[in-house]
């Protein structure tokens, strides 16, 4: 999903997640409105907004553990270490989040993706604050997810190749 600043990309994503109210129309998941099956829909959803949803005074690992718990799963330490390693955060699992740079915080938030069994990924500007290698890594992760019959809705200002899959482009404001 692309579009100029302020055109409503984030609002639309928040509506898709059921965080913002919808004035007209419906949002369906498995042919049922999301409002009437909240718990089931949220089981299938992974949302990453502008904020990283990381508690500053907890360590990287504690943050991941809590986020997994919210999703109803126990954190598998080995899988978590592998995910962190993939995002170049090897050896940083016991650092407090407040000691990480902006880009690294984003990487911690994104490493959750590799641990999430959710089928629908809703990502708001996931490529922001990422270096080239990070962008490549994330694109590959999304491609793998799509290859496993997953779905991903994301906003971006830059054109990123996501594997061999041609994305459906929605340009807001046109």
């Amino acid at each position, binding site marked *: 999903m692309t579009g100029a600043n302020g055109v409503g990309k984030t609002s639309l994503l928040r509506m898709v*997640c*059921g*965080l*913002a*109210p919808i004035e007209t129309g419906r949002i369906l998941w498995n042919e049922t409105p999301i409002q009437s099956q909240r*718990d*089931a829909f*949220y*089981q299938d*959803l992974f*949302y990453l*907004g*502008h*904020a*990283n*949803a*990381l*508690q*500053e*005074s*907890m360590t990287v690992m*504690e943050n991941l*553990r*809590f*986020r997994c*718990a*919210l*999703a*109803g*799963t*126990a954190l*598998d330490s080995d*899988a978590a270490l592998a995910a962190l390693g993939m995002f170049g955060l090897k050896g940083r699992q016991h650092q407090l989040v407040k000691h990480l740079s902006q880009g690294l915080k984003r990487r911690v938030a994104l490493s959750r993706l590799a*641990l999430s*069994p959710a089928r629908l990924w809703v990502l708001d500007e996931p490529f922001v604050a990422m270096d080239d290698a990070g962008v490549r890594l994330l694109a590959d992760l999304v491609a793998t997810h799509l290859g496993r019959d997953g779905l991903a809705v994301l906003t971006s200002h830059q054109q990123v190749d996501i594997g061999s899959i041609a994305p459906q482009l929605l340009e807001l404001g046109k």
Partner: protein
Amino acid sequence: MSTRTLGLGGVLLAVLRREVALAMRQKGEVLTPLVFFVVIASLFPLGIGPESALLLRMAPGVLWVSALLAAMLSLQRLFATDYTDGSLEQMVLSSTPLSLLVAAKALSHFLLSGLPLVLMAPVLGLQFGLDSRSLGILMLSLLLGTPTLSLIGAIGAALTLGVRGAGVLLSLLTLPLYIPVLIFGAGAVEADAAGLGANGHLSLLAALLVLSTFFAPLATATALRISLE
């Protein structure tokens, strides 16, 4: 990828553990309300003078009002950091019902701010010359009353999220709702001292606790959803 699922209890335990771990890292936030409680309650004997009959008569009310204000002090922070860092959105988007997550947060608020007050109260009660029987009733009434304060306060904290001057607004919203708890809490000690027995007051406090345990998390969850829109 194999994932082990956590039961409902596991999720709520994770919320509790996170809150307690955070509090242990920011000890000031736990200690400030407690010190506030001690200071406020100690100012009264200093201001009123050493007339023991008057102090004794005032003790339950003074201690209860101090506890109420101390509990208010930490309420504002209940959802504030989760709101700014985006964790609150994730709680709303959890497949665990939000009202249960909220109940776990309220329980953690009680454990970290209410329970220390309950344990500190007898020390302050001695300053006022309360006897051991009255101290016991005071602790029991606080033990039944402070969880209700946390539960009702959570509604106020959720409603005032992201509002400027939230602190004052929060007090204006929740203090009137605290009145029944205050009346029955302080009343329990007085009734017992007057020989009427504290059972009635304590039962009403317990009833308030049961009612707020059921309704407050639902109301808080709704308020949080509105605040996030």
